[in-house]
């Protein structure tokens, strides 16, 4: 664990009855870093996020923010955290301006002008009731509320779920702008991997409640390769390459290896092989399971 960690999970396990939603997970996000937490539906992302926000109590382990137990000190710590929830949770009867008024009284660093600017930019009427807004607008209001609190940590739980392309783009632009201006720490869970790939410093992949991968994005992309063979890859068995997945590709075979090394691979002298780098999304599919694909 990093001594500089702003967000920390230490051996966190969370169960719902007999079902284990989060299974002994440890991760940390350094101050100013962007961490992308990836996983399929039901993999435990939101449960882990709720533990990290002090909303759910882990059955074992500790969730910490700024080095403090978030379950015990949630009230104080939330002053420094902005949250965009997976499902917009503001009261549907509330008007947008009333939500801002409510938040302005709770946060000492509330920026009313920043909120007003964003709402205007999103084209959302301040007198509109939250329950009458579109899903995209609700997400935008949630983001505007979270960013106006001048948070040191921003937690985005699947912020683009259900949004159209334009809304996704504007949402990420706001986050990027805030990061550029203030250097906040961001934890984002998402299925929308393309925009995250450009901003995430580190990524973790959850599968069935377990953190199967937790690594710097650049390192991750450097060691994963797709290799296509024109015949059966007998050579794989003879080499020290670790295949994350292997499948038929035309008459040949396609393998995703997770410990690719240019020098070592050249030594194998396979002229027919085609080696290509992989995107974060491709790596996610290879690790988290291709059969179900990635939800959009």
């Amino acid at each position, binding site marked *: 664990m990093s001594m500089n960690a702003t967000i920390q999970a230490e051996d966190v396990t969370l169960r*719902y*009855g007999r079902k284990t939603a989060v299974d002994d997970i440890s991760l940390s996000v350094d101050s100013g870093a962007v961490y992308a937490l990836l996983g399929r539906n039901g993999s435990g992302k939101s449960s882990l996020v*709720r533990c990290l*926000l*002090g*909303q*759910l*109590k882990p059955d074992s382990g500790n969730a910490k923010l700024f080095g403090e137990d978030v379950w015990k000190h*949630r*009230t*104080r*710590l*939330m*002053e420094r*955290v902005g*949250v965009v*929830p997976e*499902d917009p*949770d*503001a*009261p549907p*009867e*509330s008007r947008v301006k*009333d939500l801002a008024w*409510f*938040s302005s*009284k*709770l*946060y000492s660093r509330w920026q009313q002008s920043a909120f007003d600017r964003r709402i205007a930019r999103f084209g959302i009427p301040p007198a509109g009731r939250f329950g009458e807004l579109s899903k995209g607008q609700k997400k935008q209001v949630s983001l505007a509320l979270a960013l106006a609190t001048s948070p040191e940590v921003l937690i985005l739980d699947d912020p683009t779920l259900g949004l159209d392309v334009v809304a996704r783009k504007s949402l990420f632009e706001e986050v990027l702008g805030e990061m550029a201006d203030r250097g906040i720490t961001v934890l984002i869970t998402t299925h929308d991997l393309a925009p995250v790939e450009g901003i995430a410093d580190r990524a973790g992949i959850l599968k069935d409640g377990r953190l199967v991968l937790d690594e710097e994005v650049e390192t991750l992309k450097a060691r994963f390769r797709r290799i296509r063979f024109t015949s059966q890859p007998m050579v794989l068995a003879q080499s020290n390459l670790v295949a994350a997945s292997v499948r038929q590709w035309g008459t040949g075979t396609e393998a995703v290896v997770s410990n690719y090394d240019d020098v070592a691979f050249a030594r194998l002298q396979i002229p027919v092989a085609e080696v290509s780098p992989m995107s974060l999304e491709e790596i996610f599919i290879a690790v988290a399971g291709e059969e179900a694909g990635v939800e959009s």
Partner: protein
Amino acid sequence: MNAALLIASRELRDRSRLFLIAAALSVSPFLAALTIREHRQLGIASVAGFLAIAYSCSLALALGVSSIGRELTERRMSFFFAKPVSATAIWLGKAAAGLLTALGALAIIVLPTFLFAREGWKNMFMSGGGAVALNTALICLVLFFGGNVVSTMLRSRSARVVVDFFLLAIAAIAAFAIVRPILMRGGKDIAGDIIVGLCVAVLLVLAAAPAWQLTRGRIDARQNHAALSKFLWIGVAVALIGTAAFTYWVIATPPAKITQTFQFDQDPSGRWIYVSGTAPGRGEYMASHLIDTATGKHERVSGLPWGDAHLSGDGRMLVWLESAEILPRVGTSRFYMRRLEPGAKQIATPLVTRLPAHLVLSHDGSRVALATGGRVEVYELVSGRLLAAVQGIDTSVAYLLYFAGPDVVRIIEADKKDREIRHFRELDLVERKLMTTGEWTTGENRGFNRTADGSRLYSRADSTIIDARTGAALLTLPVKPTRWFYATMLDDGSSIVTRDAKLFAIDANGKVTAEVPLPVDAALVVARMGSSKVVLSAGSIVQHTQRMLIVDLATRKVETSVTGIYGPMLTGGVVPHYEEITAFAGIDASQKPMLWDSRTGTKRPLPS
């Protein structure tokens, strides 16, 4: 701004529509009044009152159900928990907003009619409208807090709800079991206070539980349910334990705490005392004890409230009735008995009966005669066996019933047509036969007192001693009392009359055997002591002129004179005959029971 106030303010802002509906409803009583011709103002107030109660109660329930439960299931509670507000502030804010909405709506509906139909409201308040308003506010509280609890439990869809219903049933049974002993002993007022106290305690638990629920459960519906259940049932258990402790304090009232005496009897040896009465802070709960004055030990006797316990004539048995009903109502009762011996146990007999109009014991307390509903029944107590029964006795008129021997019950009843005629009858328990043995005609109904063997009766109205079997007049007292209660026949057939500051002792043949000067003009004989002494009561205990005298007929002197106390009590038809005892049971001017020394007149309290 305080977080709770802020949340309350936010919630109220969202409920402007509910207040608009209330404003619309406030107009409707005036529209309804257009159809009323007479008592229009009262009609307006009545319609407004009904609408206000119905709307505010509905709101309280709806808001109680939705404030937390609905937000949990619709996953909106994270809105608050993602902000720097405590769980307690969330609940306090929501509760304040919910209750203000319900009570504010009530005020909005009522206010215009209160201003424009004041007379109607005045009439309503005079007929209990104030209590209705208070009760409405209380009902709103119960609906709001109760609605939240039920909603949280049901919406969690957890199997734990089965446990909750089970615990609810247990709590209800426990509450009843705790209060029942007090109800069964006449303490309806204190039981009512206990129930109100328990309800207030439970309401406080219901009000406080959600703060704990949200602190522990936060956004998880099932964890909320688990935390709520834990707090609720522990709180209810604590309230029940507190109630049980208070109930125990009431039930365990020691004899020394009794200040209002209902019954105070003493056996002939003077050792055993039965006392029942009420004590401060215990309402009308009737504390009853059997006291062994030799050891100072006392034990609780759980007889019927306002029902006598009966000492047998030989002073060896105490018999009483306890309710055989689960609910505190007049129904069947069971006979209990206890031998007046150290270490003896209270025995529940198999005899269960409806509360009789008349109940008498045989001399040794082994049998009981009951008269009620025109029927006289005689039972053996230990076995509950019916020994004999007769129908057609009018138990509603002047009446005397007693054991004239182990196997004979004498029944004296008024004639159904001529109330001045008394019919003397005997129920033979061996033959199981009712016989008419004689009659007596008297001018006034002053009742009789009798000898210990039941062979003679003294008719107080006529100053005449008669044969108890035949009704034949045996003698008329040679000295007439100035008032009927200043003449008494003793257990051995001799009589005492007091008048003109003198006591006249008259033997069984009607001869004056002694004249004793008294320090009072006249006195009432309450007991006989030893072979030659009588205990008299003079003056009024209420007017603080009460005086007890012990007169020795052998020495013809007043042996003891003590003021400010009354006792032993004169009960039943036979003047009690005590042995030479030192401690008499008596009550002071405030009806507090105590003991007094027959030689020195010194008073001392009952054991505590």
